[in-house]
């Protein structure tokens, strides 16, 4: 079975000059066309990472008469009419108008979640310095927009660690398929499904934090607020274009409904905030709502490459050794190199781990595994250059040589945020403890938080 990816990422034939710089960043060579001619996207190959959207500089000139009018293009792209920013050849179809409609529909109970990487980038769209950290203003803005509950993907990031951590320990101790791959990056998952189906068993069965959150919103979340799950409308704000695809995967309805009804990007949220006339920079800091908005430092570093690994190790160490980890800052898995490996002593067991950033870099690793030449226990893979902070849905940097700067600042502030959190290990998150006591039990854990994958070849 296949999921339609058509129309999520497109290249505007009128605007594309055929410079083909996008082919340089596409990890799966999905962009086809002659040099100097408009390019097209091979939807079978495309993993929807959106890096082509980030690099494209072929903008629509306001003074150019021989192209379709801006209004028409914005409609095609499903953008809010109030958006003023320039349009580029490579784009993704948005969902901001959908969300805007939902927010004025009183018959619905709206719940929103925000990915870790969004809070270190969204302020850029309001002229703040690159990588500014603004979780409080973001929460405030979401409440001002009218969401009934402002929850956080960081909570389910913590939850992912609990599940994935346990899964890893099981696989290692009871001899499961190793190495185990992380499964939070939907582009990576799609890539395995279409290019390396034989390695699917290596993928962690855990849903991504977005989908865990979705499933919980319409079950546990609905209970908490005593609302009818059918009336809950679940929105996610992601640094990622592929999340739009992930939430549309047919199987993602274990709550009995679409776990996530719609995913919008960081840029789209900024557009919604501007559209509503909210002065983002002037907003007071506000908290995320309990219980599904409470998170630890471990949850927030999911936004940076190596973050999932670091968070997992913090928890795994303490669960296995039953003693406190000497230093929570596991610098050995941080960095920007495409492939980083480390041996981590956990009690008398040495965990061999690898962290991969940039999908192209994973291929040699996968080939090594197929050839039986890689004896890792656990591998984190993120499709985008330095993880979600550099995602295809993140604010697009105007001057190319400032992009590296943006990525560094976003990453740094992600770790700054972690260091300033009261709790920095997922298993210490009080709401996580609570949800395992009050709601999660053997059987619903499995169908709400875990999933199966589909070979696409």
């Amino acid at each position, binding site marked *: 079975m296949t999921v339609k990816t058509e129309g999520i990422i497109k290249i505007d034939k009128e605007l594309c000059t055929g*410079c083909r710089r996008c082919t340089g960043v596409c990890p799966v060579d999905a962009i086809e066309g002659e040099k*100097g001619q408009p390019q097209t996207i091979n939807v079978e190959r495309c993993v929807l990472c959106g890096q082509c959207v980030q690099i494209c500089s072929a903008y629509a000139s306001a003074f150019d008469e021989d192209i379709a009018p801006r209004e028409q293009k914005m409609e095609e792209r499903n953008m809010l009419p109030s958006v003023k920013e320039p349009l580029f050849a490579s784009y993704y179809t948005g969902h901001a108008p959908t969300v805007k409609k939902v927010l004025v529909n009183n018959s619905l109970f709206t719940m929103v979640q925000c990915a870790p990487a969004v809070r270190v980038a969204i302020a850029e769209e309001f002229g703040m310095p690159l990588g500014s950290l603004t979780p409080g203003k973001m929460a405030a803005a979401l409440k001002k927009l009218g969401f009934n509950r402002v929850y956080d993907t960081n909570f389910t990031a913590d939850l992912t660690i609990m599940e994935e951590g346990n899964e890893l320990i099981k696989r290692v101790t009871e001899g499961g398929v190793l190495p185990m791959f992380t499964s939070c990056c939907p582009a990576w998952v799609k890539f395995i499904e279409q290019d390396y189906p034989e390695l699917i068993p290596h993928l962690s069965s855990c849903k991504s934090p977005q989908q865990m959150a979705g499933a919980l919103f319409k079950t546990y979340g609905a209970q908490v607020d005593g609302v009818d799950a059918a009336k809950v409308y679940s929105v996610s704000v992601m640094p990622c274009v592929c999340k739009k695809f992930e939430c549309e995967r047919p199987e993602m309805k274990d709550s009995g409904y679409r776990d996530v009804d719609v995913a919008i990007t960081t840029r789209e949220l900024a557009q919604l905030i501007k559209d509503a006339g909210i002065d983002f920079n002037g907003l007071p800091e506000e908290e995320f709502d309990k219980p599904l908005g409470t998170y630890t430092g471990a949850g927030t570093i999911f936004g940076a490459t190596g973050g999932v690994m670091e968070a997992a190790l913090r928890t795994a160490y303490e669960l296995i050794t039953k003693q406190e980890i000497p230093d929570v800052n596991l610098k050995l898995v941080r960095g920007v190199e495409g492939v980083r490996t480390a041996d981590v002593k956990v009690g008398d067991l040495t965990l061999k781990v690898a962290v991969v950033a940039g999908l192209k870099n994973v291929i040699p690793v996968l080939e090594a595994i197929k050839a039986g030449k890689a004896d890792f226990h656990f591998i984190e893979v993120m499709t985008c250059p330095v993880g979600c902070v550099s995602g295809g849905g993140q604010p697009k*940097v*105007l001057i190319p040589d400032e992009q590296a700067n943006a990525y560094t600042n976003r990453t740094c502030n992600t770790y700054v945020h972690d260091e300033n959190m009261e709790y920095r290990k997922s298993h210490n998150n009080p709401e996580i403890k609570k949800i395992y006591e009050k709601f999660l039990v053997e059987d619903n854990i499995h169908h709400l938080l875990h999933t199966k994958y589909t070979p696409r070849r």
Partner: protein
Amino acid sequence: MNTKLNSFVVADPRKCIGCKACELACAVVHADSDGKTVGTVETPIMPRLFLVKTAEVTMPIQCRHCEDAPCANACPVDAISQVDNKILINTEACVGCKTCMMACPFGAMDLVPKYKDGQVVTQNGLMSETEDGLVEKEVMLAHKCDLCVDQPNGPACIRVCPEKALELIVPKQVKRKRNVEAATNFLDSVKNFFD
């Protein structure tokens, strides 16, 4: 007066891939907003160099900072002068007469609306007659390459070009380099002609 020739930026059509990164960067560094991401751009992109893309050629075209700048000599209000070896427009003086656009043989001169803080600036007196009545008319200004006079690290177009296709030409240096190359290359052909 020991005349130093004005430098200018020119692109190598063999290298240019037509990505428009130069146009974008040009517009951005000249905008009054200090936003760094696309979302912060609220005014139209108004570059001072222009990508030409046809079947024969792909390259951006911009001002050559002519020594006898036809635009300046054509300007009826002396709004264009040479400052520090650059041909610059004094926007305060410009009346939007478009003579410079007609005078420039490169099409390097443009006429664009004036924006301030993301808002188009309108004129005090002049109104436009439209179907919804009289509306204030925006201020229009002559618009051309200023060699990024306010940029600490030089012309943005050169900086951002992924193919390094743009180059700042310092005429006398180019001439000298070519002279030396020509002389050196000529050495070999000598014996075949003179001896």
